[in-house]
């Protein structure tokens, strides 16, 4: 049991404290409220609990998964979890006592370094809750940097990201939040230019966007910067070994959902919020950052740094209230990146690209139509003759998770299915998908 004391222990302790019983120690609590009746199920032994959760786990049906939409299935090498589940990592706290936490601190420093390399950015934080909250914090940082009052965001953002952005910024005084529409599945550049008025603080754009389409991010970056505004890019980390990087096209802040880097889907959480920026904005970064330092003998060491930004010091004047990071998810990510190395990461990216395109070609050969004719990475949109919702239901019965129903986002897209293909899919999987979709 997890309450260790024997009756004798309790007696000795109470005697030393000078109390007759434990209840005496709870005298501060209104006595008539003590020990309420609790209607809880009977306690399970570890064995019974194991059985219970195995049964519940089996109620989740394994499907051949073609859904992405912000959470992706990727192969996780065994060494990732073997290492990150070590108690030394798993059961440590935020590394407040740096001398006794060098392991966690160095892994975060290495995470920051690998992400900076992958994103081509100057600064990376120790991580944020998830991609959506990292993006909302980046938009808030824009407002602090240039003191303007309008945030533009692309209609091509993930619908949950849009909602989180609205929630986070709702009560910023004087803020205007405006959506820039898409044209043919990518940002309408003319419309963007029109909306880039002198009051625009930042533009938030996803590339690839929610519809899987690559955006002309160099052009977008030029337009945004010419208007004196800042660019917040929502990137896809596993596309970056291959595609143009936020650093390359000049993003001021680049954020991402890092789950695809070695973390399980787990019904969408925990995720891994990646937050990066240009050097000049380092003091706007929310949450923890680890820096390399020297100990008093000059030995290399690592420590939480630039803490003057944070809530425990600045209280209500802090950039954010965040006081944790997703250390374990960041650890999975850095182990994953280290195991794969630059070549392995590139291979995975190329396999995603290739397999997604192969499926798209196979579907077209079978008579299906792609909704957009732009470039894509590992997600694309198929337009069917019937509502996607129906197709998803039918394919689930055949053991396939067909994709994301875009009818949830827009009525115009109700026959559209957002399909994601990762390196996990074999040719046979692709063929089974095409066969199942025949007739829709």
């Amino acid at each position, binding site marked *: 049991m997890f309450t260790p004391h024997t009756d004798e222990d309790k007696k000795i302790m109470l005697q030393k404290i000078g109390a007759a019983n434990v209840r005496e120690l709870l005298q501060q609590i209104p006595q008539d409220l*003590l020990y309420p009746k609790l209607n809880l199920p009977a*306690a399970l032994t570890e064995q019974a609990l194991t059985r219970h959760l195995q049964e*519940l786990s089996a109620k989740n049906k394994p499907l051949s998964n073609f*859904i992405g939409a912000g959470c992706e299935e990727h192969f996780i090498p065994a060494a990732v979890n073997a290492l990150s589940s070590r108690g030394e990592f798993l059961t*440590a706290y935020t590394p407040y*006592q740096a001398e006794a936490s060098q392991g966690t601190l160095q892994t975060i420093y290495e995470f920051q370094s690998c992400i900076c390399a992958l994103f081509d950015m100057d600064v990376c934080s120790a991580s944020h809750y998830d991609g959506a909250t990292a993006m909302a914090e980046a938009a808030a940082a824009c407002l602090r940097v240039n003191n303007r009052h309008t945030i533009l965001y692309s209609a091509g953002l993930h619908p949950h990201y849009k909602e989180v952005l609205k929630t986070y910024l709702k009560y910023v005084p004087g803020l205007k939040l405006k959506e820039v529409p898409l044209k043919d599945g990518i940002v309408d550049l003319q419309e963007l230019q029109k909306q880039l008025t002198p009051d625009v603080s930042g533009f938030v754009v996803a590339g690839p966007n929610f519809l899987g389409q690559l955006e002309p991010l160099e052009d977008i970056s030029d337009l945004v910067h010419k208007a004196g505004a800042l660019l917040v890019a929502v990137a896809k980390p596993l596309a970056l070994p291959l595609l*143009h990087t936020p650093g390359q096209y000049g993003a001021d802040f680049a954020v991402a959902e890092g789950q695809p880097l070695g973390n399980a889907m787990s019904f969408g959480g925990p995720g891994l919020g990646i937050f990066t920026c240009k050097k000049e904005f380092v003091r706007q970064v929310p949450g923890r950052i680890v820096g390399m330092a020297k100990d008093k003998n000059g030995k290399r060491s690592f420590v939480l740094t630039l803490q003057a930004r944070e809530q*425990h010091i600045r209280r209500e004047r802090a950039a954010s209230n965040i006081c944790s990071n997703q250390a374990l998810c960041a650890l999975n990510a850095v182990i994953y990146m280290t195991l794969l190395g630059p070549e392995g990461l590139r291979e995975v990216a190329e396999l995603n690209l290739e397999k997604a395109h192969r499926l798209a070609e196979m579907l077209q050969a079978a008579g299906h139509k792609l909704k957009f004719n732009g470039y894509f990475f590992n997600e694309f949109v198929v337009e069917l003759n019937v509502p996607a919702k129906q197709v998803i239901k039918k394919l689930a019965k055949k053991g396939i998770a067909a994709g994301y129903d875009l009818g949830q986002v827009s009525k115009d897209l109700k026959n559209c299915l957002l399909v994601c293909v990762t390196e996990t899919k074999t040719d046979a999987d692709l063929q089974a998908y095409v066969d199942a979709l025949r007739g829709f």
Partner: protein
Amino acid sequence: MQEILATNKLSIEKSHAGRRGVRFEKPQFSPDKYVPAKYLRKSVDRLPEMTEQDTVRHFTNLSRQNYCLDSHFYPLGSCTMKYNPKAYDRLSALDGFANAHPFAPEEAVQGTLEILYNLQELLKEITGLSAFTLQPAAGAHGELTGILTARAYFDAKKDKKRTEVIVPDTAHGTNPATSNMAGYKVINIHSGPDGRVDLNALQNALSERTAVVMLTVPNTVGLFEKDIRQIADMVHKAGALLYMDGANFNALIGVAKSADFGVDIMHLNLHKTFAAPHGGGGPGSGPVGAAAHVAPYLPKPLVEKLPNGTFTVRGKMPKSLGKMKSFYGNIAVCLRGYAYLRQFDGKTLKEIAENAVLNANYMRVLLKEAFPAFFDTVCMHECVLTIQKDKMNGVHTTDVAKRLLDYGFYAPTIYFPLIVPEAIMIEPTETENRDALEAFAKALCVIFDEAQKEPQLVKDAPHNQPVCRIDEVGAAREPNLHW
């Protein structure tokens, strides 16, 4: 020799071009078949190239430079570093749970949804509140969720004049930062001489501008707000809502229900009270509960049970504040919270809280002579001590903390709460046995003696860690944040 002994080489310094840890099948075509060159990246530099063995050894050796709960007593006040049963590590990662996609057809994720629904129900039962959202990713995220829920509630009532949040100085540091993020003005109030909310100060601060009073219960000096019902009455009379920061709920679980205090909204920390390991800083989970009148404003969606016995996240919540993060929360952490609550019945939960309180008081009394409690009274789950300046020969709290590392103990939370000078905040937690408590207290007493006889020894600590004291000022002045 120094070179050979170097334990903190970076992975990039061990890297050799051409080494690989994992191989994948070879792509058949060059990417420019699919994407034009202007969208492509030229090369990926500055990433380590290592074999699987190198990688395993690298991270294993790094892990050994950590103190952790599995190896050390870890009495970090306000953080509840208690033992978390190993069963949950395995169970929360079962394939069926790990491979569930958040947008999978609901009939394929009924197992996960059933657990989440039942966890919501269990949390309702132990707090007495009407609804719980599992969406917040951490305690601070829960606070923000709670305050935005309150704000959505007042917005719906068209009550626009409420622009202030009252925060006592014994609250968590995140409370004022949270209120500010929600666009509220923060009104700080001082605590009374007994370390609790000064009712006069509260009354003076309350007005028709007050939206929320944020109370940490038990508060950060480890005391229960014994006037909590009166506080709730005052808050409600002013038309405001009472928010309870429930990060310290392991002092109360099974012993009292928050709803009975008059709390309108609260957050819990599954990674503190409900047995999820801290993972070196996260992920956590900070579910938020609400009384019936504010429940409709919680973030969407909640997990609902349909009349046919299946579970869904597709319910409508027209009054909801919106979404706090993508998807539904840190589900893998929620699974652990559920497992914990299924392993204990009401009687054991009560024992958990009682043990947390017993352990903290035992610690307080063991250390009475060397490090007296700042408020000399019975405490709840943690005790906040201070140093006797005149007896310490210039040895400060930080020195004591570093010296504890030498003796094989992680340090308590220090210099927090801010209202206690040279604070040493010890939370032994409910899972530690008497031997561990006595050994830790003994170490602190030895350090107290050392401060009399050999203060420099303490001031120079730690002596046996992988590194000595770190130049934090230098690190912040010239930040080196990546290789």
